[in-house]
C-alpha cells in the first residue's frame, strides 16, 4: 500500500488559492485513476479534479467550503503498491504562499569571520576572500604592486577615509574587523571613541606608547561651573601633549632673526605671487629656510626609536594650524625639493583644506619637523611642545618692528628700526645636543637674514 498526496491545483498563473466546493467521494470510497474526486472553484474557473491514481480515499484534509492556498494537501489516497503509480513525482516547490516570513533555514557552513564571495566564472566578482584579517604594517602603500586587500587595509572605504580625515586618524594604525581585515565604520568610530594618542605615522603602534589612552586626573566642579566633555580631537591633543613632555627631554633655544630683508623681498614679490594665486607670507620664507637646512643638520630631522636614532630620508615639514575645534598639523612633503613659490602655495592649500576639513589622512602623516606660527597676535616667544615622534619643533614669535643695534661695515654702530622676530626651537636633548640645535638655528637665521633675491 502506498500513500499518494492530492494537492489543490493551480488553475492559472496568478491564482493563489482555491475553494473546495464539493467532495465527489467520501473516505473509504475506491477511486479509479482520473476519476473525478472533488470540485473546486477559483476566481477564474470551476473544475472537477481527477484522482491521480487508482486506490481508496484514505483521508480528507480540506472540507467543503474551505479556501486554501494552491499546493495545499487536500486528501490522501491509499493505492495498491504498484511501482508505476505509487508515489507522486516530487511536487514543484511551492511558489504560491502569500509572503510571510519563512522560518530561517540553517545554513550548512558555519558563519565565517570574513565572508567568502568567490565565484568560478571569469566575470566581475567581489574581491577574493582573505584569510583571517592580518594587520599589516603601515608602509603598505609604498611600492608599485599592491593587492586589493592591501589597498583595502590601508585605505578602506570612502566613508572610513572621510571619518579618518575628519578626526586626523591614521587608518593603518587601527585594527580592522571587516572584510580582508579592513577597517570598518564601526572600527574607526570605536577607535575614535576610545581616543588613543595623536595621529602619528610610522610603523607599529609602540612606545612612546600611543596604544593606551592617558587618564587625566579628575577634579570636582563647583556650583556654577560649566563642564564640557572633550571632543575627540581635544582628547587626542591633550594626551599627546602630556605624552610628549614625558617622553622627550625638552630644551629650548631662542634665536632672534632680523626679518627686514624678508619683509622687503616679500613686499616686492607679493603682487607677482598673488597673480599666480598664492599668498606669500613670512612663514613661507621660514619654512624654506628650515627646509634648506634640515638636510644639512640631519639630527634635527630625526626620530628616536628605543635606543636608536632614525635619520629620516625625507624632509616633510608640518605646519601647525589652529582651528576652532582644535590643533591639526598638515605636512608639506619633500619641502626641501620645493621652491619658495611651491612652499607658499602648499601652505595656502593645506591651511585652506584644514579649515574646510578636506585633509586626507595622508596630509597629516609622516612629518619630520614641525613649525608652529601663531601669527600676528602671537607672543614675543613661546616654548612649543615637540610633535612626536619628531625631535624638534620651531615656534615663530611675533614679527614686529623693534629697535636694533646695527654695525656698519666700518664698525660704526647705530640704532635702527628693524623688523624682528624670535624663533624658539624646542628640541629633544636625548639626541639633539645644544650645539646641534644652535648650529641649525644659526644657519636658518643667516639664510633668512641674507635671503637671496633669486630664490624668491
Amino acid at each position: 500500500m502506498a500513500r499518494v498526496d492530492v494537492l489543490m491545483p493551480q488553475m492559472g498563473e496568478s491564482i493563489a488559492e482555491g475553494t473546495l466546493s464539493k467532495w465527489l467521494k467520501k473516505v473509504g470510497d475506491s477511486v479509479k485513476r482520473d476519476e473525478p474526486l472533488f470540485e473546486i472553484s477559483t476566481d477564474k474557473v470551476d473544475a472537477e479534479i481527477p484522482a491521480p491514481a487508482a486506490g481508496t480515499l484514505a483521508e480528507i484534509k480540506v472540507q467543503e467550503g474551505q479556501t486554501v492556498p494552491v499546493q495545499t494537501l487536500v486528501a490522501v489516497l491509499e493505492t495498491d503498491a504498484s511501482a508505476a503509480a505509487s508515489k507522486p513525482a516530487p511536487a514543484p516547490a511551492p511558489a504560491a504562499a502569500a509572503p510571510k516570513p519563512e522560518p530561517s533555514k540553517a545554513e550548512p557552513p558555519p558563519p565565517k569571520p570574513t565572508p567568502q564571495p568567490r565565484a568560478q566564472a571569469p566575470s566581475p566578482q567581489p574581491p577574493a576572500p582573505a584569510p583571517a584579517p592580518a594587520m599589516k604594517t603601515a608602509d603598505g602603500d609604498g611600492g608599485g604592486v599592491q593587492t586589493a586587500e592591501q589597498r583595502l587595509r590601508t585605505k578602506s572605504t570612502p566613508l572610513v577615509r572621510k571619518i579618518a580625515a575628519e578626526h586626523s586618524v591614521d587608518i593603518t594604525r587601527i585594527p580592522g574587523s571587516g572584510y580582508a581585515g579592513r577597517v570598518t565604520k564601526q572600527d574607526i568610530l570605536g577607535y575614535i571613541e576610545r581616543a588613543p594618542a595623536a595621529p602619528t605615522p610610522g610603523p607599529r603602534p609602540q612606545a612612546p606608547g600611543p596604544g593606551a589612552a592617558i587618564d587625566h586626573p579628575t577634579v570636582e566642579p563647583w556650583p556654577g561651573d560649566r563642564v564640557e566633555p572633550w571632543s575627540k580631537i581635544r582628547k587626542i591633543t591633550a594626551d599627546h601633549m602630556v605624552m610628549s613632555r614625558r617622553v622627550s627631554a625638552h630644551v629650548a633655544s631662542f634665536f632672534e632673526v632680523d626679518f627686514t630683508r624678508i619683509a622687503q623681498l616679500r613686499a616686492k614679490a607679493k603682487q607677482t605671487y598673488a597673480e599666480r594665486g598664492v599668498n606669500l607670507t613670512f612663514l613661507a620664507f621660514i619654512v624654506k629656510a628650515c627646509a634648506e637646512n634640515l638636510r644639512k643638520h640631519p639630527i634635527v630631522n630625526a626620530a628616536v626609536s628605543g635606543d636608536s636614532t632614525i635619520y629620516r630620508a625625507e624632509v616633510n615639514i608640518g605646519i601647525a594650524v589652529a582651528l576652532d575645534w582644535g590643533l591639526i598639523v598638515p605636512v608639506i612633503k619633500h619641502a626641501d625639493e620645493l621652491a619658495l613659490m611651491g612652499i607658499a602655495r602648499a601652505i595656502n592649500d593645506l591651511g585652506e583644506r584644514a579649515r574646510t576639513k578636506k585633509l586626507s589622512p595622508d596630509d597629516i602623516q609622516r612629518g619630520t619637523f614641525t613649525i608652529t606660527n601663531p601669527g600676528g597676535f602671537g607672543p614675543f616667544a613661546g616654548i612649543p611642545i615637540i610633535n612626536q615622534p619628531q625631535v624638534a619643533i620651531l615656534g615663530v614669535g611675533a614679527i614686529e618692528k623693534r629697535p636694533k643695534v646695527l654695525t656698519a661695515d666700518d664698525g660704526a654702530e647705530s640704532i635702527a628700526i628693524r623688523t624682528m622676530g624670535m624663533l624658539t626651537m624646542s628640541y629633544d636633548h636625548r639626541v639633539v645636543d645644544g650645539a646641534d640645535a644652535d648650529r641649525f638655528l644659526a644657519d636658518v637665521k643667516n639664510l633668512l637674514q641674507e635671503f637671496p633675491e633669486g630664490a624668491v
Partner: protein
Amino acid sequence: MDSRAARLTPASVPSSIAAPSPATRPGGASPAVAPLSRDQLREIYYYLRLTRTLEERLVALYRQTKVIGGLFRSLGQEGESVASAYALERGHNKDILSPLIRNLGSMLVMGAQPIEILRQYMAKAESPTRGRELNVHFNDLEKGYLGQISHLGDMIPVMAGIALTFKLRREPRVGLVYIGDGGTSTGTFHEGLNFAAVQRLPLVVIGEYNHWAYSTPPEKQFAVKDLAEKAKGYGVPAVTVDGNDVFAVYEATRSAVDRARRGKGVQFVEVKTYRRKGHAEHDDQHYVPKDVLERWSRENDPIDRYAQRLRSGDLVGDADLKEIDERVRVEVDQATDACMNEPLPAAETALPGVYVNPPAADRLWFKAL
C-alpha cells in the same frame, strides 16, 4: 459573477455548424488527390485518437498539479491538425511544419512522441527542452516540426525563411505553418505572408478559423468574412474548407502542398472549425453559449464524423477502430507511467546554452555564499 451571464450578440453565433460548409477551390484544373489506403485511413484515425486521449490525460494531470503552467486543448480541432499534417511528406529531413498551441495532432503526425509531450508539460529534466519551455514549444527540425513562441504571427516569417532555404537549395520540400483567426491580425503575419508571397516560397499556410481568439470573436478581429479573403490581398491563392471534415482538409492541403512543391508559391488553406474549450484550462468559456458548444460536440465532432465515414463507407471496421482506441489508451498510460516520476531538471542546468560561446551564463556571486 455578473460577467458569467454575458451573452454574445447573435451575429457571432456561427450559423452553419451542423452542415459542413462546401469547400471552395480556386479556378483552374488541379490534379486529383490520390485516395487514401486502408492503412492510411487507420493511421489517420490513430493520430486523431492519440491527440484527443493524450490531451485528456494532460487535463487530468493538470488538475492533479503534475502539469505546471497552462494547458491549451485542441478539442474540436484535432481533425484539421492531423489531416493537414498528413498531407505532407514525412520522414527524415522532408517537409517541415510549425504548429500552434492547438496543433498537437500535427506534431504527432510528424513523429513527436507522447512521452515527449508529457515530459514537456510536466517540466521534466528529460523533456526535449530540458524543462526550459512549456507545452508544445519544442522542435525537431529533422523530423519536421518547429514549435512556436507565444508571440503570434512570428512563425510565419520564420517558416518563410525555412521555405526560402528549400528554394535556394532547390530541394523539393515544403513548409507548412498554422495561424489562427486572431493571429492574422498581427504585424508579423502580414510581413511574413507578404514576404513569402513575393518570394514565391514553397509555403502552405493553414488559417484556422476556430471562431475565438481567447474571448474575442471574429467580428472584433477583422472586417472580412473568411480568412481566405485576406490571402487574396497578398496575391496568394486560397481555399476555404470544412475544418472538421478530415477528408476535405486532407485533400485541400494535399493539393496546396503539391502546388507549392511544384513551384507555384504560397498557398492558403482556410479551415473552418470551432474551439470547443476555453483559451486554456483556466478559462471556462462562459462567453460562449453552452448550447453552441453542445451542438458542435454532438453534431460536428471531427473524430466522430471521420469514424462515421469510415464505418459507413466500409473503409475501416468498428472492431479496428476500437482496437486503435484501446491501443492508444495503453500507449498514453504507458507513456505517462514511464515519465511521471522522473525528476525535474537540476537547478544549475539553467545556466548553459545561452550562447555557443561562452558556454554558460555566470553563476551569480551570492549563490556561492
